[in-house]
């Protein structure tokens, strides 16, 4: 790769030399004759584009057949050729066109992989190289010398594909990612004009690969593990693994191995992760993460989060297909149709509030037009967006399909019945944020989804590992029934004692939340519900000065959450008695 890039840069240098060799403006002006002085100003314009591979009918990429697409909304700089100083900054339009009037001087054009706007409707979305000091990608022209009052300079970012492998700089990659960001931004701001989007960096590099750093990403080396999103302040450095700044990290591995995976030309993948950014930064996401798949019975919040991600990519691309390509050149694919029961994986997908497949199908049917069998809903993205920005943020329960359905029905009562029918088809029959009257034929002992605690009344519950699929490390970390939920209403607030009693040898743990915010600062005593309680199976905690409101208590047998909670095999079904007392 180093040699290939060096060659490309050498070629660029030659191009630059040729452009400069055309003579300075003085020499050019002198040749025009007539004694007319050269114009003092020149209008430079042109288009910025990138090459994108076409998609074959089998969902793989064809890098030998590309289409040239405009770079939309990108920052373009006109730089003085002699010293690189900035002459003008403009933004490309929806056709990739730019125009600027600057001093008549040899110049270069630079298109940044950046969508930037300040004020109302503002955003700052950038594509950077995590393996090179987080440098912002920029597409640079060779130097050109104006010969009149106008000058056209078109820039194109090529894929670097040489027929059977990459032989040149992969300049199109950051702009293919930027194009997806542009489309996602358009979708959001059409739904909510004036929306100010928190800054987002997307990190891509040719060296971003599937290896990892002791189970964590290493953005400096490019050992990411996979394409993912991280919010907040990112991940702190641990051991040999450097810190991971917040953003979306995208694989770019096309080194020639069988396991190669590059995602820059997989807009579904980028948009899925962008969906996590939307839910995290513009809404609320209670998902705990962990491995998941279409055939898993998941905890409701991660089922909702991942189903949302899959559906959101469909909204951005206006297609029910999710596509992810693998191997050098994208010659293999994983693809499924969220409209049609995740076809062709129909036979294995789960159905229910605990299934990401069910969630994404409901989302899609709300988004697309009515008229299909079982789908009489037609609300479009704006309605979904409003719920993600409203009811999902405000729910006192979990961010799950339940408050989404409730928020949508309240906002669109004329379609509430159709929505209810669609949910019933997925086995989702609970009502309201707290899923009242939800049935669960596969595991009635895991009902109700949300139990209720009142002062002085012990309530039995069971934490299970029965849906872990034999994953010894994660066990049921994010699976249905490992974590049990309790609603606690404190209309006057107050001081609260909580306890969970399991059998000796069990290790009950719990956490108290209010609208997704954990209530025990630093998980410190006396409010910590995470103590090791194997000796007597009793976990207790005390809270003081809780504000009036509705709280959510999450209770689990620690071993059922896998080795992230405690080493050793999961206990499996563990009956615990949970109690609250107001002091």
């Amino acid at each position, binding site marked *: 790769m180093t040699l290939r890039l060096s060659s490309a840069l050498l070629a660029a240098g030659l191009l630059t030399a040729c452009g400069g060799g055309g003579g300075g403006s003085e020499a050019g002006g002198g040749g025009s004759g007539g004694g007319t002085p050269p114009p003092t100003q020149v209008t430079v314009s042109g288009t910025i584009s990138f090459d994108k591979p076409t998609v074959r009918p089998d969902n793989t990429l064809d890098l030998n057949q590309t289409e040239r697409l405009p770079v939309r909304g990108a920052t373009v700089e006109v730089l003085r050729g002699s010293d690189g100083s900035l002459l003008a900054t403009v933004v490309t339009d929806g056709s990739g066109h730019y125009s600027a009037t600057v001093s008549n001087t040899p110049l270069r054009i630079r298109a940044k992989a950046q969508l930037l706007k300040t004020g109302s409707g503002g955003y700052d979305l950038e594509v950077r190289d995590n393996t090179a000091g987080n440098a912002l990608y920029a597409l640079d022209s060779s130097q050109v010398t104006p010969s009149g009052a106008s000058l056209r300079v078109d820039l194109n970012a090529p894929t670097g594909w040489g027929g059977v492998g990459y032989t040149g700089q992969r300049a199109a990659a950051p702009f293919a990612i930027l194009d997806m960001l542009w489309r996602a931004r358009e979708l959001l701001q059409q739904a909510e004009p004036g929306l100010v989007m928190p800054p987002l960096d997307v990190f891509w590099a040719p060296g971003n690969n599937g290896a990892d750093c002791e189970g964590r990403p290493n953005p400096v080396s490019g050992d990411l593990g996979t394409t993912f999103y991280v919010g907040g302040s990112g991940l702190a450095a641990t051991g040999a693994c450097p810190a991971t700044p917040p953003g979306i990290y995208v694989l770019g591995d096309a080194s020639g191995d069988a396991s190669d995976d590059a995602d820059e030309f997989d807009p579904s993948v980028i948009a899925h992760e962008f969906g996590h950014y939307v839910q995290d930064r513009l809404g609320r996401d209670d998902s705990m993460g962990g491995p998941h798949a279409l055939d898993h019975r998941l905890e409701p919040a991660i089922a909702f989060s991942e189903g949302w991600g899959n559906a959101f990519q469909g909204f951005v691309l206006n297609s029910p297909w999710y596509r992810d390509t693998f191997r050098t050149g994208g010659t293999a694919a994983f693809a499924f149709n969220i409209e049609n029961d995740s076809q*062709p994986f129909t036979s294995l997908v789960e159905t229910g509030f605990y299934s990401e497949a069910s969630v994404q199908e409901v989302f899609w049917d709300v988004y697309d037009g009515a008229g299909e069998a079982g789908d009489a809903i037609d609300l479009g993205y704006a309605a979904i967006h409003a719920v993600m920005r409203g009811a999902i943020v405000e729910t006192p329960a979990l961010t799950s399909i339940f408050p989404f359905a409730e928020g949508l029905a309240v906002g669109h009562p004329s379609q509430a019945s159709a929505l209810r029918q669609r949910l019933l088809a997925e086995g989702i029959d609970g009502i309201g944020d707290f899923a009242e009257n939800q049935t669960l034929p596969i595991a009635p002992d895991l009902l109700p989804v949300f139990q209720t605690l009142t002062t002085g009344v012990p309530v039995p519950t069971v934490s299970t590992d029965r849906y872990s699929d034999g994953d010894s490390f994660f066990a049921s970390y994010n699976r249905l029934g490992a974590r049990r939920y309790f609603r606690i209403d404190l209309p006057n607030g107050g001081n609260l004692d909580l306890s969970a009693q399991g059998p000796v040898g069990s290790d009950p743990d719990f956490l108290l939340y209010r609208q997704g915010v954990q209530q025990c600062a630093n998980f410190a005593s006396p409010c910590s519900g995470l103590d090791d309680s194997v000796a007597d199976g009793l976990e207790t905690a005390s809270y003081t000065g809780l504000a009036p409101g509705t709280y959510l208590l999450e209770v689990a047998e620690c071993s059922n959450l896998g080795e992230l909670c405690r080493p050793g095999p999961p206990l499996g079904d563990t009956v615990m008695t949970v109690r609250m007392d107001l002091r």
Partner: protein
Amino acid sequence: MKVWASLSWRVWVLPLLLLGCAAEPGPKGYQSPGKPRPPVALRLSGAPRMQAGVPVRLQLELTLPPGAESHSIEFDHSPALQVTGIALGTGGRLEAAVMPMIDGPRVLAGFVTFRLGGTLQGSPFRLRLPVGQGMAPATASIPAPAGVLRQDSVDGTVMSLTAETTSR
């Protein structure tokens, strides 16, 4: 002894490998588990003792979606862990003859292809294999790509990419 006692279930994150991982460093931070992965699993049967220079036959179990019609499996070439042969068995079982060349944590990586519902689908895989006694931290990494880093006059460094330039 509770390993993550000081961390919230919602506040950590970790391992991915095959999987993709999740993590959350702050009260409102969130790390996605990674992009959706195909419903394919490759697991190691048993716990073979592996040492550098000693060939070993790994018993593997491949789980494909119900109805998958055919499959093939291909391994990456690794100087540290050489795959010298593959034998496909029944019921998703297969045997890989490997020669570990260097002690330390190794990864058996590759790609599985299968046909489902008339479409060709695939999935990369990565399987961790400890080799030898000394478990030195993995040092393998991919060097940063070459390129020109220049100071940008507006907002820090840029990674310069060469445009196909047309001017007139």
